[in-house]
C-alpha cells in the first residue's frame, strides 16, 4: 500500500494533463479501469487481515473518490471548452429578415358594431337580426309609413320586380314588390311580432338606399335599438343614449344635444348631436363650438305598437338608429364613406383593427 500515494499522485497528474476527452478517458482507464492501477490495489485488499484491510480500504476509497472527482470536473471543463469552440464557429446574420407572416385585419364596420354591441350589452340589450330583402309591410307599412306618406320620399328604395301572386300569402305578405330594407327598423317589427314585452334589442345590419355620391353609398350599415316596457320614457331615452355616446367615443365630457325631429315611427322624435371642435382644421369630438348629428330616436309611435299586436295603452318605449359608418368615421377620422367598400388593401390595413383587439368595456373599447 506504500504505492498508493504515488499512484494517486500519478493519476491526478494524468487527469490534469489530459487535453482532450480521449486523453481523459485513457487516464481514467489507467487508474480506475478494470486493470487500472488503483483497481489493482483494490484487489490486494482481499489478502489482508481485518484491521489492516479496514485502514487500507478507507485510504483506497478516499484516493479513488479523489481521482473520480478530478475526472468529473476535468470532463465538465473539457466539454465546456469543446462547446465553446463549436459555438464559436457557428454564426448567423441576425439582421436578415424573419420568415414573413401575413397580418390580417378586422374591418372597421365589424369592429364598430362590436364596440356598439359591447356598450348596449352592458345595458341589457340583446342582439337581433333580420333579412336584407324585406316586404313592404315590415319596411314601411307596419312602421306607420303608408304608401303615399311623404316620408317615403326620404327613403330611396331599391325594389325588386313585381312578384307573381302566390296562394297562401298571409295578410302580411301583400304579393307586392319586395325591396331591400332601407333601415334596420323592420327588425323592430319582426321582434315585436315574435316577442312579448319587455323588449330590449339592438339590431346591427346592412341597409340599402338608391343613392350614390360623396356622402351616400347604395349599401351601408345601421344599428337600431328598441326598448319596450310599461314605464320607459324620454328621460330614459336621453340617459341611455348619452351614456352610449360617452362610452363609444370614450370622451366623458362630450356634450350631447337632443333636438326635436320627425320620424313616422316615433313620436315624440329627436335627433341627437354631439359636440365637437374644429380647431386648426382637425375635428375633435368633445366640448367645442360645433355640433355633429349622429343618430335619430324617439318614443315608439302607438300605431307601430298596434301594428305589432302590442297594446299602446299599456306599453311604451323608445327606438333609435344610427349609421355605423358615420360613427366609425367620426371616431376614427376616416374621411370618405365610399372607401369602406373599396376593398383597397392599403385602406383595410391602415384603418382595420388587429385580430386580438376585441373591444371590451373591461379593457377599454379601443387600444
Amino acid at each position: 500500500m506504500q504505492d498508493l500515494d504515488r499512484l494517486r499522485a500519478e493519476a491526478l497528474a494524468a487527469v490534469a494533463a489530459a487535453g482532450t476527452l480521449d486523453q481523459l478517458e485513457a487516464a481514467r482507464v489507467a487508474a480506475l479501469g478494470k486493470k487500472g492501477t488503483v483497481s489493482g490495489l483494490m484487489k490486494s485488499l482481499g489478502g489482508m487481515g481485518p484491521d489492516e484491510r479496514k485502514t487500507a480500504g478507507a485510504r483506497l476509497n478516499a484516493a479513488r473518490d479523489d481521482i473520480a472527482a478530478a475526472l468529473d470536473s476535468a470532463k465538465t471543463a473539457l466539454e465546456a471548452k469543446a462547446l465553446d469552440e463549436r459555438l464559436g464557429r457557428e454564426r448567423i446574420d441576425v439582421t436578415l429578415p424573419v420568415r414573413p407572416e401575413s397580418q390580417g385585419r378586422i374591418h372597421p364596420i365589424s369592429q364598430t358594431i362590436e364596440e356598439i354591441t359591447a356598450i348596449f350589452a352592458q345595458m341589457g340589450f340583446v342582439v337581433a337580426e333580420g333579412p336584407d330583402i324585406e316586404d313592404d309591410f315590415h319596411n314601411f307599412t307596419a312602421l306607420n309609413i303608408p304608401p303615399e306618406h311623404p316620408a317615403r320620399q326620404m327613403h330611396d328604395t331599391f325594389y325588386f320586380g313585381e312578384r307573381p301572386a302566390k296562394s297562401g300569402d298571409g295578410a302580411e305578405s301583400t304579393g307586392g314588390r319586395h325591396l331591400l330594407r332601407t333601415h334596420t327598423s323592420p327588425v323592430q317589427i319582426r321582434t315585436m311580432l315574435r316577442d312579448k314585452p319587455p323588449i330590449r334589442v339592438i339590431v346591427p345590419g346592412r341597409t340599402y338606399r338608391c343613392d350614390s355620391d360623396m356622402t351616400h353609398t347604395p349599401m351601408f350599415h345601421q344599428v337600431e335599438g328598441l326598448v319596450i316596457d310599461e314605464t320607459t320614457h324620454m328621460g330614459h331615452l336621453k340617459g341611455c343614449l348619452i351614456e352610449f355616446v360617452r362610452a363609444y367615443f370614450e370622451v366623458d365630457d362630450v356634450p350631447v344635444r337632443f333636438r326635436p325631429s320627425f320620424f313616422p315611427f316615433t313620436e315624440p322624435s329627436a335627433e341627437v348631436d354631439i359636440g365637437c371642435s374644429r380647431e386648426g382644421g382637425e375635428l375633435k369630438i368633445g366640448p367645442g363650438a360645433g355640433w355633429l348629428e349622429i343618430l335619430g330616436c324617439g318614443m315608439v309611435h302607438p300605431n307601430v305598437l298596434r301594428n305589432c299586436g302590442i297594446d299602446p295603452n299599456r306599453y311604451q318605449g323608445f327606438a333609435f338608429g344610427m349609421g355605423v359608418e358615420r360613427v366609425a368615421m367620426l371616431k376614427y377620422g376616416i374621411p370618405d364613406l365610399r372607401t369602406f367598400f373599396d376593398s383597397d388593401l392599403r385602406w383595410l390595413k391602415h384603418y382595420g383593427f388587429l385580430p386580438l383587439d376585441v373591444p371590451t368595456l373591461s379593457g377599454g373599447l379601443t387600444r
Partner: protein
Amino acid sequence: MKFTLSWLRDHLETDADLARIEEGLTAIGLEVEGIDDPARHLGGFVVGHVLDAEKHPNADKLKLCTVDSGAGIIQVVCGAPNARAGLKVILALPGTLIPHNGEVLKKGNVRGIESQGMMCSWRELRLSDDHDGIAELAADVPVGARLTEVLSFDPMIEISVTPNRADCLGVRGVARDLAAFGLGTLRPLKVEPVPGSFKSPIGVRLDLSAETLDACPLFAGRHIRGVRNGDSPQWLKDRLTAIGLRPISALVDITNFFTYDLCRPLHVFDAAKVTGDIRARLATEGETLAALNGKIYTLEAGMTVIADDSGPEALAGIIGGEHSGCTEATTEVFLEAAYFDPIRTAATGRRLEVLSDARFRFERGVDPAFVVPAMELATRMIIELCGGEASEPVIAGTEPDWQKSIVLRPERVAELGGVEVPAARQEAILNDLGCAVAEHDDGLLINPPSWRGDITAEHDLVEEVIRINGYDAIPQVPLPRSPMPKPVLTPGQRRAGWVRRQLAARGLVETVTWSFLPEAQALLFGGGAADMHLANPISSDLDVMRPSVLPNMITAAGRNADRGSRDLGLFEIGPQFDGPEPGQQRQVAGGIRAGRARGRHWAEAARAVDAFDAKADALAAIAAAGGNPDSFQVVAEAPAWYHPGRSGSLRLGNKPVAFFGEIHPGILGRLDVKGPVVGFELFLEALPQPKAKATKARPLLKASPLQPLERDFAFILDTAVAADAVVRAAKGADKALIADVTAFDLYEGANMAAGKKSLAITVTLQPVEKTLTDEEIEAVAGRIVQAVVKATGGELRG
C-alpha cells in the same frame, strides 16, 4: 325653407337677436341648416370721411384722397369717378378681408404714391352688384363708426322642415312656433275682405263625383280687372331674391310670396285666355298640358287638373299651364285659391316628376281653413301693387272637415315625455300654438288648429308640450338594468365573431363588399335569376343580388393587383342570396387567397397559393366556430366556379357545409383577374348548433404515463385512391392503440408504374396499460397493413 330675419319680424315682434333666434329654431325642431349673414364678414369696415380729393400726380384717372378714418388721417389712391371731398365712405384699412375677392387688403403703392386704405364699392362688400364707383353713405353717419353699426343687414336663414310640419313652410308658421317658445309675440294677421264691385264673368265648379270630391273639396276664385302687371316693388323683389327666387312680375311674385310667407300657394290665370268656367276635375287619359316650366305633360286618368272649356290649364296644386299664364300684357286675372288632396298631389307629382314649391306644400297639407282668407289677402295685395278692381268672390265646395278634439291627460307628459310640466304651462304652450283648450274630466280637451293636421292624438300633444318646453329640460334617467348583464349574442352571432377573429389571425384581411353585383358575374356563380334583379339598380354594375360572397372579393383582388398588391388574402362574413323572399339568404364566411402564399425569402422557396391553403382556412374557420374538423367528410366535388380537379367540399352527413379549392381559371379569365386564386365558402348556419350542456365542466383528462411511439408505412396505390381512405383504414386497424394517423409523403413520378402512386403515413401508437413489446408492435403493424391493403387494393412498398 328660407327666409330673412326682417321677413320673420314681419310676423314676430321680438327683440331677440339672430343668435338667439338661431338657437331657438334648432331647439324647437326647426333645424337651422345655414345662415347667410352679410354682417359676419363686415366687422372690419369703418366709416371714412373724404376731406380732400385731388388728381393723382402720375395718373389722369386716379385720385389722391385725404381721408379721416376716425382714428387718424390717411391717404388713399382711388379710381372711382365719384370720389370727392365731403363724401362719407366705407373704408377698409390694411388687414381687412375684402369679401368680393377673398383677399386681405395690404398697403399699396399706386404709381409712386402710397395708398393706406381702400374706399369700397357695394360689390366689393358683396352687398350688391353695384360697382359704379364707391358706395356713398348718408352724410350724417359718424366718422370712424363700424359699418355694422350704421347699416342694417338682413341675414338669410335656412331651416330644414320635417315632413309633418307643413305649417312651417311659411314664415308665419315659423314665427308662431318661435313665439310659443318665448322668443316674442306673433303679430296679428288682419284679413279684411275686399268688397267686390262686379260679378265675376268666370265661374268656378267642382266637376267631381262624391267619391272623388276629396281631390278638391274647396275652390275659391276672384276676377280682378284693370291690373298692370309690371315690376314688383323693391321690398318684394328683395324678399324673393334673398331666398333665391327670381322676381318675374308683380302677379307671379305675389303668388310666390304667399307660398313662402303664409304657406299658401295660389295661382293666377290670365283671365283673357280662359274660356268658360274654371273647374277642378280629374284628367282623362292622354290629355296634355304645356306647363310653365316649358315641358309638356301627358296626363293619366285620375290626376286632378284645373281646366276650362278648352282643356287643362293647370295641374292642380303642382304647376300652372303656359297658355293661361300671366304675362306683362295681362290686364285681367283670375285668382285661384283651393285645397288639394295631399295624397293625390304627391302621387301625380311623383308620377310626372314635377318638383315645385306648390306641390311640396300641398302634399304635406296646407291649412284647409285658410283658403278664402288667403284669397282675400292676395286680392288686396294685387290691387295694391297692380291696381284694378275685384269681382265678388266665387266659391265652390266647402272646407274639408279638419276639426278634432283630443283629450290630454297632463300626467302623460311626465309618463311619456319624462319631464314634469305644470298643467297651466301645458295649456299655455298649446294655446300659443293655436290650440283651443278646454277643461275635461280627464284633463284638457284640445282642439288643434286647422294648420296642424299632424296633431291627431294625445302623444302628438305630449310632443308639442315637451318640444316647446325644451328637450334640454328633460332630465336624463339611467335605464334600469340588472346588476349583472346576461350574454346578448345568439350562438350564431358568437360563432361569426370567432370565425372573424380566427380568419384575421390567419392573415386574411376582412373586407365588406356590396350585396349586389353585375348580372354577368352573378351568372358565373350560379345566380342572376330574373327575380333576383333590382328593378331600379344604382347602375348596371350593381343590378343583381349576389349568389356567392366570392365574386366581389375576386374582383377586389384584381383591383388590388392593379395597384401592385398581387399577393393577398381577403375574407368577408356576410349574406349570400338564394331566393327573392325575405329569409332566403345564408350567412357565409368566405375568403380568397391570391398570388403567392410565400413570397421570395432567403431561407425558403417561394410558393403559389393552392387549394390546401383554402382548405386550411375552411377547417380553421370550422374549428373556430366550435365544429370538429375530423367529423367532416372531404369529397372531391365543388360548384362549377371551382377548378374541377382541385376543389372539394366538406360535408356533414350528405350536406355540404363548406366548399374550397382553386377558382376555375376560366372564371378568373371572365372576371379579368390573374390567377392563381383559391377560395372557400363556409355556410355558418349549416354547422350544427352546439348542444346546451348542463355543466361547463370538461371531461377528465386521461394522460397516459406511457410513451407514445411512431411507425411509418408506405403504400403503393392506384392514383385514384384518396389519402383519406388510407388514413381511415389505418385508424380502424386498432381503435384502442392507434392515437393518430397522418399522411406525410406522396410520390408520383418516374420511379412508379403508370397509374400508381406511393403514399407514406405515420401512425402514432399510444400504449394504454403497459409498454408494448416488440411482438405486440409487429402485430399492430401487420393489422394496419392488412386493413389498408384490404380497403384500397394497394400494397406495402418494399
